[in-house]
């Protein structure tokens, strides 16, 4: 490859990074945090901490808490997810014509519904990652396009570097900030390359799924997009309009377990609950498989008769479709895999930030020595506040969420959103007036580290669940989060020290 081609690819790599670097940073950092939404929910929503233990009530007993609610009108769908968020049963349901599902969480050990608004902070972080909090479906499409851009950025980055083996082991210390940022950027880019390609590709597919299903489904199904949607989402028979007794789900779950020994039921779906045409689908987990497509057993809800079980060895198309989401969200390999994803996701986040900082440093060097902060380009200052502010705002959100047990007004989705953006904006403004953008970035990381190390303290003060107590009780849904917060604090402190001034520079 000649020098001109390399320069063009480098310019393209820089251009896409500059234009979408900020969006990629937000998507990558929120995605890294959202990996642990299930694990973080009991910690950030103290009202959902359950004791668990033996003698969990059957699903029929748990649903009895909602029987009167369901009987008040037709119910289009009930989805019961079993053993989620630290041992809860999460019921999502809606009536015909509802725009969104309603969610109720049930403690399986008591069968009691846990009232109030819960898990607002994990929901906010998930929405930030999947939609950038923009109106659906446009936000999803923007995130999908970010995935495409990340793919292009990775591909041009690979083609630009002619000595990847040497650069994969180069980390020069005690040199200028530009050189250090460049070395970190190359190290993270090269070592995390397979992960970055996979996450960008699956992210693009998930973000653009709405468009892709219409395009390819329409073409493959002779223009019948409705038939395509049914094939992707599964067919639902129409309502009969006649009332029927609610289905007894526990015998059906036991039957599904007997048909597929060794697999646990993950989800029970009831279409047209309380109607004569109701069906029950029991989805079974198969921990050894990436694709969770076809371990599903279908029953007639009124008679309990077995209807069909989808074949375990499904077609290549169905297996591919069912593998995309688990591959992106690391839901196929347990906590250890999520931790690996988190480290690599942090690398992707730092790639976006370091790329922008490299560009700003180069601009700064081209402008020459800058005498005072007033002369320093504002964009460099804002960038420091932007990149440093998001971790601060995210960690502050966890503090507010755990204190919502004592002060419910601060735990709502809206309150947390206002606090998050308010803190982030404050960090950007602080960067704009800081004497040195690099000092502002270091200060942001230091504040974030203090917030992280303070999370176990906040948890103890707000809920009484101190770390030694939860460790002794074996309550890993809370203790695990506290320990992770300490690890995050250590990482942030290390990052802060690495940004320390080098020879004669600030």
């Amino acid at each position, binding site marked *: 490859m000649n020098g001109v081609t390399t320069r063009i*690819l480098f310019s*393209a790599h820089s251009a896409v990074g500059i234009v979408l670097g900020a969006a990629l940073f937000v998507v990558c950092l929120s995605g890294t945090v959202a990996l642990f939404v299930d694990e973080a929910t009991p910690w950030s929503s103290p009202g959902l901490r359950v004791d668990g233990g033996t003698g969990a009530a059957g699903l029929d007993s748990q649903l009895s808490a909602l029987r009167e609610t369901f009987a008040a009108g037709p119910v289009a769908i009930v989805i019961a997810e079993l053993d989620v968020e630290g041992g809860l049963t999460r019921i999502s349901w809606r009536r015909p014509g509802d725009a969104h599902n309603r969610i109720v969480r049930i403690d399986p050990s008591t069968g009691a519904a846990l009232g109030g608004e819960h898990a607002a902070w994990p929901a906010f972080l998930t929405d930030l990652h999947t939609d950038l909090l923009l109106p659906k479906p446009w936000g999803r499409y923007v995130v999908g396009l970010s995935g495409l851009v990340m793919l292009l950025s990775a591909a041009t980055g690979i083609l630009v570097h002619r000595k990847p083996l040497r650069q994969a082991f180069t980390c020069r210390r005690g040199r200028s900030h530009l050189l250090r940022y460049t070395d970190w950027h190359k190290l993270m880019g090269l070592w995390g390359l397979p992960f970055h390609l996979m996450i960008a*590709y699956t992210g693009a597919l998930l973000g653009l799924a709405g468009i892709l299903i219409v395009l*390819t489904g329409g073409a*493959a199904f002779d223009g019948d997009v409705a038939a395509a949607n049914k094939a992707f989402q599964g067919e639902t028979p129409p309502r009969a309009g006649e009332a029927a007794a609610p289905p007894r789900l526990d015998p059906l779950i036991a039957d599904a377990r007997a048909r597929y020994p060794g697999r646990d039921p993950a989800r029970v779906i009831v279409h047209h609950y309380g109607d004569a045409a109701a069906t029950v689908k029991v989805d079974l987990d198969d921990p050894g498989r990436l694709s969770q497509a076809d371990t599903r057993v279908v029953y007639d809800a009124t008679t309990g008769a077995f209807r069909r079980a989808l074949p375990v060895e499904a077609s290549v*198309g169905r297996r591919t479709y069912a593998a995309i989401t688990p591959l992106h969200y690391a839901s196929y390999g347990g906590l250890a895999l999520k931790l690996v994803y988190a480290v690599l996701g942090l690398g992707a986040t730092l790639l976006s930030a370091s790329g922008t900082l490299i560009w700003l440093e180069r601009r700064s060097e081209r402008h020459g020595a800058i005498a005072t902060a007033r002369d320093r380009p504002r964009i460099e200052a804002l960038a420091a506040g932007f990149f440093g502010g998001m971790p601060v705002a995210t960690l502050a959100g966890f503090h507010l969420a755990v204190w919502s047990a004592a002060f419910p007004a601060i735990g709502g989705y809206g309150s947390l959103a206002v606090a998050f953006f308010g803190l982030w904006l404050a960090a950007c403004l602080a960067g704009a007036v800081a004497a040195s953008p690099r000092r502002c970035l270091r200060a942001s990381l230091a504040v974030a580290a203090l917030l992280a190390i303070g999370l176990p303290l906040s948890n103890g003060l707000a809920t009484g669940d101190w770390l030694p107590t939860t460790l002794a009780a074996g309550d890993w849904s809370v203790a695990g989060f506290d320990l992770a917060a300490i690890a995050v604090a250590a990482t942030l402190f290390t990052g802060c020290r690495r940004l320390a001034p080098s020879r004669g520079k600030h």
Partner: protein
Amino acid sequence: MALRPALPALRWRMTAGVVGGTLAAVAVTLALARLLPGSALDRAVLAGVALPLIWLAAMLRALLANRLGRLWLELAAVALAGVLGALISGWA
């Protein structure tokens, strides 16, 4: 007198890649959705997962091209091939 024409600027390459590359990728994807073997769901899924890769290939081709006119011709030819493929399979 220049010994060779000036190379296209980055912005024109990116424009050709984004516009032409997207159209070419969509056309080829539609053709794949019609022509691949298997059930309709299989064809739809496999064509859908191919689209980002086709788009990426088109973008890289645009960045590596030395002549803008020839690049547009190449992308148009790919798009035309995709449309013809979809039409040949009986879908209009």
